[in-house]
């Protein structure tokens, strides 16, 4: 596996980047849907995207898999979608519950403006058509974490439809080849999230916390297989997958399971399944007997949601009361694809590295700050940031903003390296020390530990000559063409010079002396 860090990163963070095992799945013209929801914790829920995959088995005719993702993403807002309760992470249970959230009789939903703006922004970022009129519905089912007995959602006419997302897939040898794919976004809808259920098996009871549901991002996958050219197969739904890694595994498993079943002459049931993380397989969900009829009904307490653009804005409209799509479009931040493109153009870094820089929170800023203060080449900076720096963070489970090494400090270190004051190996040692002991500058550490490279080339030549004289056997090996012999000599020279000589230079000198 090439670039293990990148791969782990993209699967763990940015599910839109799919790194694929050679010979198995390709993404092809897929569609993804988002619905954004909010209430006690808000969610985006996506609907029915299609990620077409292909898998060939030896000798048998091909199967095509079709995958649709329903993605629930919680909106980051100060208060909930329909009530004024605050949204705080890790608040005591049931401490952020308004009368409406508790479904007290007589309470009514009031739409949160920020959530609507977030939904519009998401729709625009995903190239959707924003519906200037969208409607709210009630979806009925009984469950303890749904106090009203229904969820307010947008089933008939959601806020955004028909979008797309371009993403890159690393394929080929060493995942160096990057191809661009597009996934379709069927729709984005706003909806309430439920509360949180905690099952206490011991006391046979369930505890309900109505603050917000768990999981900032939750995904349900709809999967079916068919032979290309034939109609689509029966689909199953795999619910509540919370990480991209498990999502991929669950989908892979389910595709294979369906293929196996069909090839053995069995039928696929249109059922709901869950993913058993420990066993790595999907299992039918016991609770769902029969098909649910949600008895959708228009939500009578919320009038149609009307959005405007600059052209359709009514004259004299109160800006507090209306949402202008054009204004929101102006406020869109630079989208990741644009940022990545800029990075590639500006710094000549590889596409897969551009993904990695964007996938870790704060990493891009860190990188850019280092670049500002160093004369080292961007490629060098990239390598240091993505391999060494990020490696240290991950080992210690730290976020970028928790790093003891600041961009300036790293920049200083890279400058020393760039000026050949220290060797690469020495630089790594210094970095280790910087991580441990705050307050010391790289220059301080270098001088304290005497890590400066020998600048005196003549002295180095003398050392090399001496070492060669002292080890004639090794020299003989070298002359005979043994490639490892030279490394031994380099090692000896380094020892003598207390590692203060650049191994590359040592090698050059030894080779020169040998040939002469």
């Amino acid at each position, binding site marked *: 596996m090439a670039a293990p860090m990148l791969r782990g990163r993209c699967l763990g963070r940015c599910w839109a980047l799919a790194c694929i095992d050679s010979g198995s799945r390709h993404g092809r013209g897929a569609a993804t849907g988002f619905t954004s929801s909010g209430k006690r914790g808000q969610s985006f829920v996506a609907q029915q995207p299609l990620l077409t995959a292909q898998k060939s088995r030896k000798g048998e005719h091909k199967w095509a898999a079709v995958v649709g993702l329903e993605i629930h993403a919680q909106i980051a807002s100060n208060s909930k979608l329909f009530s004024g309760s605050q949204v705080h992470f890790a608040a005591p249970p049931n401490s952020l519950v308004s009368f409406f959230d508790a479904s007290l*009789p007589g309470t009514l939903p*009031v739409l949160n403006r920020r959530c609507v703006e977030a939904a519009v922004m998401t729709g625009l970022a995903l190239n959707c058509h924003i519906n200037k009129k969208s409607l709210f519905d009630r979806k009925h089912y009984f469950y303890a974490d749904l106090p009203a*007995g229904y969820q307010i959602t947008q089933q008939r006419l959601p806020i955004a439809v028909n979008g797309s997302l371009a993403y890159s897939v690393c394929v080929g040898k060493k995942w160096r080849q990057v191809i661009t794919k597009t996934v379709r976004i069927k729709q984005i809808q706003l909806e309430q999230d439920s509360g949180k259920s905690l099952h206490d098996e011991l006391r046979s009871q369930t505890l309900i916390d109505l603050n917000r549901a768990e999981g900032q991002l939750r995904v349900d996958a709809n999967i079916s297989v068919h032979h290309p050219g034939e109609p689509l197969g029966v689909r199953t739904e795999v619910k509540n997958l919370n990480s991209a890694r498990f999502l991929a595994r669950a989908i892979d498993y389910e595709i294979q399971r369906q293929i196996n079943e069909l090839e053995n002459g069995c039928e696929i049931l249109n059922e709901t399944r869950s993913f058993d993380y420990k066993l790595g397989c999907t299992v039918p969900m016991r609770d769902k007997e029969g098909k649910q009829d949600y008895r959708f009904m228009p939500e009578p307490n919320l009038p149609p949601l009307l959005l405007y653009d600059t052209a359709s804005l009514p004259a004299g409209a109160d800006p507090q009361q209306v949402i202008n799509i054009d204004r929101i479009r102006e406020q869109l931040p630079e989208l990741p694809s644009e940022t990545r493109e800029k990075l590639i153009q500006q710094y000549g870094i590889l596409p897969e590295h551009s993904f990695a820089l964007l996938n870790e929170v704060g990493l891009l800023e860190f990188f850019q700050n280092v670049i500002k203060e160093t004369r080292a080449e961007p490629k060098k900076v990239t390598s240091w940031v993505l391999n060494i720096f990020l490696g240290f963070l991950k080992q210690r489970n730290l976020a970028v903003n928790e790093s003891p090494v600041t961009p300036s400090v790293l920049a200083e270190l890279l400058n020393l390296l760039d000026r050949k004051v220290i060797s690469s190996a020495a630089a790594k040692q210094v970095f280790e020390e910087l991580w441990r002991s705050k307050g010391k500058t790289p220059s301080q550490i270098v001088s304290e530990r005497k890590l400066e490279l020998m600048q005196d080339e003549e002295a180095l030549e003398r050392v090399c000559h001496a070492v060669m004289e002292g080890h004639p056997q090794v020299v003989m090996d070298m002359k005979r063409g043994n490639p490892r012999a030279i490394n031994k000599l380099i090692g000896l020279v380094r020892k003598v010079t207390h590692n203060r000589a650049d191994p590359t230079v040592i090698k050059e000198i030894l080779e020169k002396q040998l040939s002469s």
Partner: protein
Amino acid sequence: MLGRTLQEVSAALKQGQITPVELCQKCLSLIKKTKFLNAYITISEEVALKQAEESEKRYKKGHSLGALDGIPVAVKDNFSTSGIETTCASNMLKGYVPPYNATVVQRLLDQGAVLMGKTNLDEFAMGALGSDTGGSTRNPAAHCGIVGFKPSYGLVSRHGLIPLVNSMDVPGILTRCVDDAATVLGVLAGHDPKDSTTIQDPGKPFMLSSLTDVSKLCIGIPKEYLVPELSSEVRSFWSKAANLFESEGAKVIEVSLPHTSYSIVCYHVLCTSEVASNMARFDGLEYGHRCDIDVSTEAMYAATRREGFNDVVRGRILAGNFFLLKENYANYFIKAQKVRRLIANDFVNVFNSGVDVLLTPTTLSEAVPYLEFIKEDNRTRSAQDDIFTQAVNMAGLPAVSVPVALSNQGLPVGLQFIGRAFCDQQLLTVAKWFEKQVQFPVIQLQELMDDCSSVFEIEKLASVSLKQ
């Protein structure tokens, strides 16, 4: 004093002829004497006296809050009242004490009104005597000889009104005279940010002008409302009222609301569907009645709801869920929505043709005695009693029942005026004119009670007829 209008009492309070506390005590005393009427579910005596005392302080300082300061009011028990039990007359909410006031309750209290208690209703307002979803402010008003006013949908906040049918419910106002209804409307109307179905305009108090010249008025008489079941007495009052307007110079014409005959059925589909949805929250988990079963959540829900709801409520939930099933939705719910649009358009067309106000009966007849009443099932009764009133709720229009005369049996009969959407002020102006012409003798309960012999008779009758 208790027989006077709101404006008269308000004036008396201002002039110091009576104090708020005295008034409150008189009211409480009468409530206690008439307990056999079972009009109140909860009497909030302590709260009322406290509010009366505060009102008194304000009057002494000359800082009264307005026309409603110190005025005793009662609120139907499907309005949420903070700290005061709110039951909707249902087992499901027995013991439920809300932590917040409905907006309309809050607005009344902000004006210094004194809350005497929570009045009775059919369970969750699903009888003929319900909140004004199908006519249940206007119907009882007609039967009791008082003014019952249903504002335009969207004019008065529903926040805190425990809903029956969200798209039709409106808080209704019951008063002795039309002016009083206008006074209360001035306090209650206006945008509520907590209710997204209210219009944007903030409300403001207003005084009804005294109409003297009705020659510019056009009164419409919908011909479909002349049904065979209409009692001859009520028909005659209706006819006389039309003649009265005509003789005073108004234009009185026959109009048609062609889809009237479909409105009862349409109403039932939409009503039961919304009811099924609105009742879904009553599961015993967060508040209200909870059964003893704890085998599983589902079992708990089922038992709680069986125990907490009566037959009528359960029947409507089942019907509503049926209509909302995927396979039925298009044929029932959507169709009913379309019919609702047709019914609403009937009214729009009539008003667009130059009619200002419609004049109709409120009820088929005077109040039916209890023993007669219980002979029919709830659905039949509702269908009959709501026949004139419920199309108005479907169209969201304002309507008011004004008492016109006593029947041969000595029971009150009212007539209904229906106005254009958001032309509540105009509607009440016309109603006020009519009220002045008719001079209906409003009931003086205090005088009745003062006559001891009547009390014993009434109590005896009441205990017989109220036996369940």
